[in-house]
């Protein structure tokens, strides 16, 4: 699992904001902001992880949180950023689906 290239996590006035780079115009109206733990997950996901367990370990290592709760939160987090199209298509299924969609057009 890895976050797509072209986004930069910036800390601004105590909050973390995901800024798209490479776009000519940056729209500050729909910016995604992350809290501290979200930013921690993001920076690990920028480098890429093998499985969700890595993230669970990371979160439990840094915060007083139960493993189950951490896993739940991480799944929700990944769902959210996948929905926004910020994750690289990791699995082949996703890639196949994309091709099929393209063929339909």
């Amino acid at each position, binding site marked *: 699992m890895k976050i797509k290239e072209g986004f930069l996590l910036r800390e601004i*006035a105590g909050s973390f904001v995901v800024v798209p780079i490479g776009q*000519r115009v940056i729209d*500050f109206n*729909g910016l*995604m902001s992350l809290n501290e733990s979200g930013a921690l*997950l993001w920076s690990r996901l920028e480098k890429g992880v093998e499985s969700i367990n890595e993230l669970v370990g990371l979160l439990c290592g840094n915060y007083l949180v139960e493993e189950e709760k951490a896993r739940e939160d991480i799944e929700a987090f990944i769902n959210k950023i996948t929905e*926004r199209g910020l994750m690289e298509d990791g699995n082949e299924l996703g890639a196949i689906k994309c091709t099929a969609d393209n063929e339909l057009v």
Partner: protein
Amino acid sequence: MSEIKKVKAVSMMPAINNLLKEGKGVRITVTGNSMYPFLRDKKDCVELYKTSFDRIKAGDIILVQRKEGGYVLHRVLLKLKKSVYILGDAQRRMEGPIYGNQILAKAEVIFRGDKKIAGDSLLIRKLSLLWTLVLPFRGIIMKSYRRLRNL
């Protein structure tokens, strides 16, 4: 852990300024009513780009950093050799002199609701010029307009 929110432009200014310096355009929603009726609070957006003092003309909307540190987005009323004087469309007292190094950007594009308008389109130029000409009557116009709306 993540949320998509309207980030207050003021707290983002250092970042916005950096991006502008890198040559990027930045779109922000306008806050405050000082540019009413041209720009409405939390409704209208502007697209800002880095500019230079030479390229600024009277009638342009520019982003200025005040000497005290605050930021304002106001219209240029008057341009002199080395400075400009600015005035919000809802204001009656101009501010200045503003020097080149205080001018961070120019609003090249205005979004009124969903409508995209070039900042220096003929219509906007004419309307803002007209609005400048009626400067002494702004207060009375706005007051009667509000009264009409509340009828």
